[in-house]
């Protein structure tokens, strides 16, 4: 495989990875199997181009679409429950972070309002010194 093809494939993998939902069952195993297949295909067809690979394996969008249609009703329910759970946890964490930062800001404000600041004034009086200008 030439360098251009390798970099194009890396971009393709990134796109596929981005487009397939994170909660998809066995996502990681499926992605690595696809990479293996593309690798096998490229080895079996020396001099292959990126376009040939896309024609054979489909674009990232086509792949994602076929993944979505192949999900069983149980998997759809499982995935949706997982997504809901994850979203709830994220919202909960954001709310706690927001609550804590509000608390900290209020605490800082309260401390600044209720702290007695003591300002000490010092006056130093130096003794008069006569300067002998004759010498």
């Amino acid at each position, binding site marked *: 495989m030439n360098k251009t093809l390798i970099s194009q494939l890396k971009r393709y993998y990134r796109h596929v990875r981005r487009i397939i939902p994170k909660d998809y069952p066995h996502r990681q195993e499926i992605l690595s199997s696809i990479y293996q297949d593309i690798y096998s295909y490229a080895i079996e067809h020396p001099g292959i181009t990126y376009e040939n690979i896309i024609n054979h394996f*489909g674009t990232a969008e086509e*792949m994602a679409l076929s993944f979505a249609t192949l999900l069983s009703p149980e998997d759809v329910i499982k995935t949706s429950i997982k997504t809901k759970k994850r979203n709830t946890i994220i919202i909960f964490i954001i709310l706690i972070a927001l609550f804590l930062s509000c608390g900290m800001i209020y605490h800082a404000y309260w401390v600044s309002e209720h702290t007695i600041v003591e300002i000490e004034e010092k006056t130093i009086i130096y003794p008069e010194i006569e300067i002998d200008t004759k010498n």
Partner: protein
Amino acid sequence: MKTSNLISNYKKATIELLLLKLLSEQDMYGYQLSQELKKRSSQNYTILEGSMYPILYRLSDDKMISFHEEKAGKRQTRIYYHLEESGLSYYKELLKSYREYSKLIEFLIDSKEGDIYE
């Protein structure tokens, strides 16, 4: 509905059966499975390689198939899928119901008023 949509629905309904059929003959890796289907159907049954993996992993979750890795060359590792006993009986069951159902559909397509399926 477009014919292409219909065909994709047929594929969706039969892909599991066909993957099990191939695995009932011998252990195969993913790429080999899709190529075999393509070859046997004279390119008339093509599936995106990626689209069969969700099915294979679902069958593996249900203990119908198992998989093992084998080194192929210096850098390449292949995952071979193996049909388990439970998978074989599931395949036979699936095949039986598929045949019965397609027979029923065939009958209904050719039937006239008054014909009853037995």
